[in-house]
């Protein structure tokens, strides 16, 4: 029998647990030459802000051991372009769309989430790891109260739509912050965002990135991501979209076993633009080979006491 890849994520039925990580898959269309978007569990689009954002000065990316740093700085065409062009284009193709929302004020999160919900996205992901001008440049997600406030505002704006709060692991205890978001109406979590990092150009004797610091992603951070998923699953048992360094089917299974219901592929898309679909097929083969009937059998299975 063919194993069942279907997962139910906070009430949403997804044909499989393979999503894309915000900011690494553009608005999906960039990957059309490589991927049949409809085959994906869902496309999580680049974080959207109310107004278009230019982003940071180059260089914006550099490689690190088994990872990369980026300082793109939330460059995006702004809410109007996304809700009027990109989301309809994706819906027209019958793609499940998760919209990632960012902002500089709590109010901005609410407004952007509202309009994207109106535009028909299937879920909202709330990126609380971008600089919060109101709070002096700290990330919203480094503090339980602010995270709860953002969550409550987005929840109020989008009614019953699934809302995933995307957290990093810096600045505060991820379980505590996730708990605050859960109490404020989060449907689940996206774990994890990038770690902070810096790279030096030894010849030029200065930081490589134009923005000096950047976000670390890729296989290097996978152990930290699994740690976060493990802990949040154990303490909260809410649905989790796991991400951080996924490049192969085994990585996917590791996240599922830790407690993720779905996973998102980020940096891995850069190494292989067709990776998402290869993972869907590979996961199916792996489950069949092991005689596992469905993905749900694996979710959180490593928590069982022996």
């Amino acid at each position, binding site marked *: 029998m063919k194993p069942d890849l279907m997962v139910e994520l906070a009430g949403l039925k997804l044909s499989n647990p393979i999503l894309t990580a915000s*900011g*690494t*898959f*553009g608005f999906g269309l*960039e*990957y059309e*030459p*490589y991927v049949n978007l409809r085959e994906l569990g869902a496309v999580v689009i*680049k974080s959207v802000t109310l107004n278009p954002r*230019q*982003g*940071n*000065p*180059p*260089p*914006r*990316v*550099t*490689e690190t*051991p*088994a*990872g*990369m740093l*980026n300082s*793109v700085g939330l*460059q995006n065409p702004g809410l109007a372009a996304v809700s009027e062009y990109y989301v309809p284009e994706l819906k027209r193709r019958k793609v499940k769309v998760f919209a990632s929302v960012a902002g500089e004020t709590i109010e901005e999160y609410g407004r952007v989430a509202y309009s994207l919900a109106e535009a028909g996205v299937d879920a909202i992901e709330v990126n609380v790891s971008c600089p919060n001008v109101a709070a002096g440049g700290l990330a919203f997600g480094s503090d339980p109260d602010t995270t709860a406030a953002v969550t409550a505002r987005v929840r109020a704006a989008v009614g019953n739509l699934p809302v995933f709060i995307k957290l990093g692991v810096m600045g505060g205890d991820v379980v505590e912050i996730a708990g605050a978001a859960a109490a404020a109406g989060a449907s689940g979590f996206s774990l994890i965002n990038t770690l902070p990092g810096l790279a030096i150009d030894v010849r030029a004797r200065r930081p490589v990135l134009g923005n000096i610091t950047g976000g670390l992603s*890729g*296989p290097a951070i996978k152990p930290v991501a699994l740690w976060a998923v493990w802990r949040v699953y154990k303490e909260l048992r809410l649905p989790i979209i796991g991400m951080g360094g996924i*490049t192969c089917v085994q990585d996917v299974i590791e996240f599922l076993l830790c407690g993720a219901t779905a996973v998102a592929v980020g*940096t891995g*898309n*850069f*190494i*292989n*633009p*067709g990776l998402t679909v290869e993972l869907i097929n590979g996961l199916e083969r792996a489950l069949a080979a092991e005689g596992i009937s469905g993905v749900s059998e694996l979710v959180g299975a490593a928590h069982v006491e022996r």
Partner: protein
Amino acid sequence: MTYEAEIVTQKKLATDCYRLEFYAPEIALSAQPGQFLMVKTSLTLDPLLRRPLSIQSVDHARGLVKVVYRVVGKGTALLAAKKLGRRLNVLGPLGRGFTMLTNGKFAVVAGGLGMAPLYFLVQRLKALGNEVTVFYGAQNRYQLVLVEQLAGLRVNYVTATDNGSSGFKGTVVDLLREKGLPPVDIVYAAGPPPMLRALGELLREVGMPRTEVSLEERMGCGIGACQGCAVKVHGTEGPVYKRVCADGPVFSAEEVIWE
């Protein structure tokens, strides 16, 4: 698209400089001058990302694609260690190449390995019956890596070397300043950023002919999705960032804001 292409030749052209040829008929057929490839240099997670390399030329009949590269770090070092018969994972062709016209007069200004994409351009321009003059500068004569092939294309070319070991003594922009730019439809250029900037200044002095430059920037995806390869250009409402990989790598010189 990505291909597992067989390596057919790997040849050292100069110190740290290699030409690698692989079998990828689809790429050979569709590649345009100025386009590039994203090449995987390792099967493990280190190095992690693909490396961008320009297409130096293609052979339709034999389905071959050539790149010329310099070993500057671990990715290119691993590439240089690859033997014939091994498979190379390549993604491409990518990006927007040079404008191709017929029956025109063109100048090509190459600095160092900037000659790689420009060689392909010259080849095609000649095949389309154009008149092409090449200005080619490098550190020394050993680094003028594709001169024999250029000669084979029967184009006019002049060279410059920092130490005068071949042609003019000085940079290719100094050479151009000395010789004067012939009247042309388009100037095409590729090379290190300081050279491109100096060229821009010179061209502005002489009235800024239509000029296309091929730029390089560190890349994440290579396909326009990550916004990693930003270059600042003049937009209609002030400066904006464009993507070297998808909006370029070839840009109009007037558009680019050099910082």
